[in-house]
Structures are given as structure tokens and as C-alpha cells.
């Protein structure tokens, strides 16, 4: 194993973490402000990817597709909030889980009805094709570097939005005392719709970015959703800072585990078996990390302020 390989794997972990952050930020924002568990967040990720693929196929431009994905996911989020989610804020979490699970099924079958069962084609824009040389002599895909950069910009933008703007102030107020900001005359219903649409747009953005790298197909959001939940549980539910650190931790742990565990095991058993056992153990690793963190800090690394 060389330093170049270790560096490449670290970047891979970082990139996975950044992508998880885009998903987890919306999820944790929605939970923090409205106290709502939204299982349909993965469907909004899928909506973003499908919108990007469709518009990119029409116009021939990935960038127009990317804008369309933001618009489509935000619109889908706003509609879902107005029609369904709005009725769930006062219900307990079981009702929320049931209703948003039903939304997953409707989104999936609706998408299949519109687009069919075969995966769509979405390619990386020409500007970001190919690989660049890294120090140490190895090469790294430009597009993955672009995802890391985009994630960093979004994280910084969210920080500015929440700490420096009026909307951010209301979001923070909503997190710490929902009844009070309503009593102070803030239009809480509009705020909820805006926050939900913002979270949805982030998920749609992640879906479009990742769609160019993976396959755009029905059901693509659910595996990511599970990881995003792991991230926000580790980071502390409701905390954006926690989501960022949790996402990077999960991304790097998962990548390094897949890379190193089979190698370590190969010192003790035959390579074929090391591959099999190491692969299985690597897939459990992030859940073990989550269990350990919850044992030490039951409310996650950065628990949100309100009890």
C-alpha cells in the first residue's frame, strides 16, 4: 500500500461524506425545525436525479438539468408539505413514518409510470470529464473533486443562511421554541413550507450530482436515506454542524473500512475468504461506529438545543 493510494481513498471517503451531508442536512433541518421524521426524503433525491436526466436529455446540457433538479425537488417538496406533511406536525412519530412511507411508494410507482422501469442515461458534463494528476503520481476524477467542492460551498452557504439572515434567525428560533415564534407573529406555516422546500432542494441537488456518477433508477434514494439517518443520529438530530461532521465520519469510515479490512484479514486467512469476510465486516462498520457513539453520547455528537 502506498501513500498515493491512501490519499486517493481519503478523497473518496470525503466525497462520499459530502454527498451524505447534502442528504442529511435537509433531513436534520426538517426534523430540527418541525420535529418531523421524513422517510420520503430519498424520493426527493430521486426526483432531482430524474429531473436532471430528463432535462439534460432534452436540452443537451447537464447544467440546465442541474437547475431543473433544484426546481423540481423544491417544488415537489413544497407540494408534499402543503398537501400531506402539514397535517402531520401534531401527530406522533408513528403516524409520520406511516404517511411518509406511503409517499415513498407513491413516488416510486409514479416515477415508474412516467419513465418506465429501465434506468435513465445521465452523463458527466464535458467540463468535468476525465481525471487530474494528484501529488504522489496517481490520478483522480475531476467530477469527484467537483462534488467535494460543491458540498463545501453548500455547507458554507447553509452556515451563512442560518447564522446571518432573517430566515436563518427564524429557523433557529423555530428549533428552540416552536410555540413562541408563532406567538410572536412569525408566519410559521410559510416558514415550514420554505424549510421543507429547502431541504428537498438539497436532496434533489445531491440526486442530480450523484445521478451522473451512478444509475438514475427508481428506488435509488432508499439506500442513501438509510445512510443519511445514520449520519444525523451520529451527528445529533437537528444539528447542521453535527450532520456535516457525522457525514464526513461515515464517509471516511465506510470507504476506509471497505479498503483496509480485507487487507488486514488477508494477513490471517486466505485471500478469497478475506475478501468475503472483510467485505461483510466493512458493511457493518458504520453501524458499529454509530452504536459506540450512541453508547458514549446517547443524543449524538452535537445534540440540538431543545429537549
Amino acid at each position, binding site marked *: *500500500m*502506498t501513500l*498515493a*493510494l491512501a490519499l*486517493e*481513498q481519503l478523497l*473518496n471517503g470525503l*466525497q*462520499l461524506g459530502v454527498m451524505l451531508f447534502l442528504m442529511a442536512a435537509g433531513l436534520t433541518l426538517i426534523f430540527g425545525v418541525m420535529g418531523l421524521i421524513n422517510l420520503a426524503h430519498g424520493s426527493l433525491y430521486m426526483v432531482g436525479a430524474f429531473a436532471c436526466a430528463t432535462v439534460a436529455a432534452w436540452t443537451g446540457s447537464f447544467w440546465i438539468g442541474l437547475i431543473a433538479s433544484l426546481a423540481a425537488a423544491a417544488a415537489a417538496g413544497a407540494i408534499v408539505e402543503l398537501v400531506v406533511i402539514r397535517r402531520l406536525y401534531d401527530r406522533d412519530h408513528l403516524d409520520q413514518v406511516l404517511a411518509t412511507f406511503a409517499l415513498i411508494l407513491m413516488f*416510486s*410507482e409514479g416515477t*415508474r409510470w412516467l419513465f418506465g*422501469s*429501465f*434506468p*435513465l*442515461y445521465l*452523463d*458527466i458534463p464535458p467540463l468535468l*470529464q*476525465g*481525471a487530474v494528476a494528484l501529488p504522489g503520481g*496517481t*490520478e*483522480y*476524477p*475531476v*467530477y*469527484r473533486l467537483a462534488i467535494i467542492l460543491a458540498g463545501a460551498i453548500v455547507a458554507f452557504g447553509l452556515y451563512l443562511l442560518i447564522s446571518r439572515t432573517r430566515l436563518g434567525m427564524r429557523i433557529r428560533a423555530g428549533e428552540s421554541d416552536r410555540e413562541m415564534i408563532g406567538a410572536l407573529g412569525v408566519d410559521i406555516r410559510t416558514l415550514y413550507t420554505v424549510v421543507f422546500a429547502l431541504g428537498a432542494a438539497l436532496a434533489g441537488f445531491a440526486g442530480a450530482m*450523484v445521478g*451522473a*456518477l*451512478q*444509475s*438514475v*433508477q*427508481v*428506488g*435509488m434514494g432508499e*439506500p442513501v436515506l438509510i445512510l443519511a439517518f445514520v449520519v444525523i443520529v451520529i451527528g445529533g438530530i437537528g444539528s447542521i454542524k453535527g450532520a456535516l461532521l457525522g457525514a464526513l465520519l461515515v464517509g471516511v469510515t465506510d*470507504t476506509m473500512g*471497505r*479498503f483496509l479490512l*480485507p487487507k488486514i484479514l488477508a494477513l490471517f486467512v486466505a*485471500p*478469497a475468504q478475506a*475478501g*468475503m469476510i472483510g*467485505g*461483510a465486516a466493512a*458493511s457493518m462498520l458504520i453501524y458499529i461506529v454509530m452504536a459506540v457513539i450512541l453508547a458514549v453520547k446517547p443524543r449524538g455528537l452535537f445534540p440540538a438545543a431543545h429537549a
Partner: protein
Amino acid sequence: MKKMLAAATLALSMSTTGMAFAEPLKIGMITTLSGGGAGLGIDTRDGFMLAIKNAGNKDITVVTEDDAQKPELAVQIADKMIQSDKVDILTGIVWSNLLMAVAPSAVAQGKFYVSTNAAPAALAGANCNKLYFNAAYQNDNLHEAMGEYANKGYKKMFILAPNYPAGKDSLTGFKRYYKGQLAAEVYTQVGQTDYAAEIAQMRASGADGIFVFLPGGMGIAFMKQFAQSGVKIPVMGPGFSFSQDVLPAIGDAAVGAKASGQWAPDFDNAASKKFLADFQKEYNRLPSIYAVQAYDAAQLIVAAASKASVKNADAFGAELKKADIQSPRGKFKFNTNQHPIQDIYLTEVVKQNGVITNKTVEKIFADHGDAYAKDCKI
């Protein structure tokens, strides 16, 4: 006059349908029509129904249900089809883990099972069954062919498959024929979508060839990411990694990849040309190998039913085993364990007139059976 007219109508209907059937035949198709694997199930259903439609016999009915790629659901559907729909034959399952949940119990209840794809080793050897037929291959076959192909010119292979039974069958099959050195043997998670960590290992491994078995969305994700990585090692795999259901979504990144298959759209025989034309006319897309396999499964059932009643299991089984069909694959016959003996070809992904598809390169195996038939005693 009336009698003559009736006789003429009867004669006419006989000539269009081939042979009159002794009695009605009911087929239950369980396949994956929703979720990530739905593309494979839809090709299976469409290929099967094409052959049924071409046969044009009203005595054959097919009931179709979606298993959503869930074993427990497949078992429930099979029970319902056997007990309340009273089907005579079950077919259609794509995935080996679902097949293992359904086929053994179906044949134990005296029903035929004709597999259109899944072919786990467990049902090909000592546990083979008179009522279980496989019209596709045995799971190991296409991987064995790539192992044989890799012997020509590849000295150090990096091999990768998902961590589930068919993934293990895959790498076992590859290693059964490949004589060279292995750079690494890697198992990934089923449904994994990001392969950056594995691609980095390929880059560092010093391998001169890469073999991947990643069906459906996994293969799409891998090939797109591999193309962007700057790694220049040749990629090969079994036909599933580059079949027609995923090629449009991979795009140009797949061009040049080598694969093994029992059929490709450029096969130069009358049955293949007819199948290709009929399928494109009916569904307006190119068929995958899943569609060919299902088409042949339906042809086999139709052919056997024209000679024997399905109620007489011994006679019907004997007719099935004769495999009296015109397969788009060309040569096709059954081995002693009722799995195919067929030619396996090397194919290459090419772009022709803007369409990305597979082209035949050469024959790897002639009349290839499987490693388990010798343990089958029927």
C-alpha cells in the same frame, strides 16, 4: 354445407396454430416488475409473452405477478398460483435466492418449473429434479467462459462480484477455468452504488485485466465511475454486466468492454432474425439476453404441450427434454440434469448507428454443459 364450413374452419385453425392441444395449459409467471431490478423482469415477461403470442393458441393462458425481488412475496404468490389459480407450470423468476425459495417446493407439489434465468448450483447437481428445467444456462457458465477467455493474454486478473450466492458462484466459475494469477478477489455489497474505493484498489493492484459481475444498476454505476477514473485496464464480465437493459444508461463508457453470452443481437440465423424483428415491432426496443431466455422457455413449453398433456408429467417432461425448438441462440439441447448444452460466445460492446449494443467476436465454448451434471441422477 354447415358441416363442411365447420370442417374448413377447423382445418384453418389447425394450420395457423400448428397442433391442437389436448387440454388447457395454465402457466404462472412470477417475476420482478417493480423496484430496482424491474428492467430484468420486464424483459423476461415480454420475451415470454412474445413466444406465447406467436404460438397463437387460446388453450394456453399465462397469469403474471410481481415479486418485487422479495423471496417471501415470491413464495406467497407461488402458493396462491398453485392452490387457487391451479397453474400447471411456474416460470419467470430472475434471482437465484428467490428461485431457491420457490422452485423446490413447487416441484415437490408436482408442478413443473421452467427457469428463464436463475440457475443456482444447488439445483443442478445432486438435488436436480425431473420437474425442474432451466432454459437459460447454469449460473457458473458465463463466468467460466470469461475465465477461459482471460487465459489468452491476461496474466494477472482483478476479480469482483457482489457478496451473495450468485456472486460467489460467479467468481468460483471464473476461477474454475482461469489459470493465471489473481491480483485481488473483492466482494462488494449487494446494491452498492459507489465503487471509488474498489477502483482505487484496481489502480494500485498492477492487474492487467478486470473481471466484474455486477448486474443491473450496480454495473451502470461501476462502468460510469470506472470510465472517469483514468484507469486504463481492460474490463470484462459475464453478459449480465453489459446486457441490453443497462447499456443505454451506461452510454459510451461501456464501449469496448468484452463479455460472454449465449446470444447477441447480431446472430446470423433465421430464428434470431425473426425474434429480433418481432420483439422490436412489439415493444420498440432491443431485447436483452433475459428476453431471449424467456422466449425460449415459452417455446419449449409450447412445443412440449403440442405433443403431450401436462397432466401426464412423465410424457410432458420427456417432450420438454427433447427441446424441439428453433432457438435464436442456434444450437440448444438439454443436458442430463435438464440444464442447457449450448455454445458460449465472446461479445464486445460497440456503438452502431448511435445505438450501443453487443457484437459477437468469437466462440469461446462449443456445446458447453456444466460442472454439476455428473452428480445428477435422473
